[in-house]
């Protein structure tokens, strides 16, 4: 259908949605004590039971650890899908175009960017590891810290060129790192099968709880956080690698052009 009809259909649908939305929100019941049961239960138990002062990470990796495992698999599969879509011929069949930024290979971009990159790489890596390892104490955890860690190779590409980026994040290394991240989560969950005591459920928190306020507290939470951070950082690096390779390389023209059969007589 052409554009005007599509727009008209959308406007009718949007008006219907808006009307139902307003009715629904007016008809919502007000605050009643039953609504807060789960929140009060979790908030009152994170510190005494797990020595974790960050209730959000405790929910993510302990109380609802199984859902987070599902989310991690979504991330893994999307990275795999993007990699499959942007897959190219092997290295020796491609030539590397010049970077769009620099006309000659000797000058890798403006000096201001290089100085800034030089100053920022170490704080980024350090800050990323800090956020990942202190997930159960302050706002943070594997997901956020992993993204911060993944910006370090990107920033190095901005300051230098693609060859350096390829050297720092070699493709097999980040592939293996991502796989270790995902498998690590599952293996930590399976620890409960051996040390679970009377409940042998997947992803029970079975390691010692430690002292509140230390990064080694809360049993399996920092380990899961590290595995997740590794997986997210490696996943984003793979995505960057795939997109940059797509943008900056092209296939070598083959030596002999194929002979096309001429049309029918």
């Amino acid at each position, binding site marked *: 259908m052409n554009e005007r009809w599509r727009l008209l259909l959308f406007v009718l649908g*949007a008006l219907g949605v808006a009307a139902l939305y307003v009715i629904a929100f007016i008809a919502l019941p007000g605050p009643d004590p039953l609504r807060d049961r789960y929140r009060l239960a979790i908030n*009152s138990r994170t510190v005494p039971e797990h020595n974790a*002062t960050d209730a959000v990470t405790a929910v993510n990796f302990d109380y609802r650890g199984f859902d987070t495992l599902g989310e991690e698999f*979504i*991330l893994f599969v999307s990275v795999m899908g993007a990699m499959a879509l942007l897959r190219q011929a092997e290295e020796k069949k491609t030539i590397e175009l010049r970077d769009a930024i620099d006309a000659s290979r000797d000058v890798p971009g403006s000096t201001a960017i290089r100085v800034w990159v030089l100053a920022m790489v170490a704080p980024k890596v350090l800050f990323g590891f800090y956020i990942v390892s202190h997930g159960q104490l302050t706002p943070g955890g594997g997901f956020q810290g992993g993204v911060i860690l993944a910006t370090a190779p990107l920033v190095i590409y901005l300051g230098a060129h693609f060859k350096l980026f390829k050297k720092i994040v070699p493709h097999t290394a980040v592939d293996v790192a991502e796989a270790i991240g995902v498998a690590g989560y599952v293996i930590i969950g399976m620890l409960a099968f051996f040390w679970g005591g009377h409940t042998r459920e997947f992803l029970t928190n079975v390691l010692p709880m430690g002292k509140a306020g230390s990064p080694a507290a809360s049993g399996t939470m920092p380990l899961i956080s590290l595995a997740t951070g590794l997986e997210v950082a490696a996943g*984003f690096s793979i995505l960057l690698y795939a997109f940059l390779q797509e943008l900056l390389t092209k296939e070598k023209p083959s030596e002999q052009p194929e002979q096309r059969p001429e049309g029918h007589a």
Partner: protein
Amino acid sequence: MIYITSAVAAWLFLIGLYGVVTSRHLIHLCLCLTVVQASTYVLLIGISYRAHAIAPIFSDLPPTTPAVDPVVHALMLTDIVVEATVVALLLAITVQIKKRTGTVDPNHVDILKG
């Protein structure tokens, strides 16, 4: 109450969908989907809010201070990172569409050739 956040969420949802429906560039379409996803985050945060309650981090306050709902925050947090990779997947599809059909206008993409 929480009416203002729900109104913002509804507005973001509808305007994002409008962008998807009337889009003429596939990358613009992917980013409008990002706007639609942002509306769900706003709605979730609005639902979890309680008046005069702190964020659910107890590192410097006693663990008995009333805090907002941490479950919804946890859902939202992993979702933001996962959304970024799903948008990357969509952009990879866009690159392939451009390679195969030579156009990025969703009205002119004609993949199912008879």
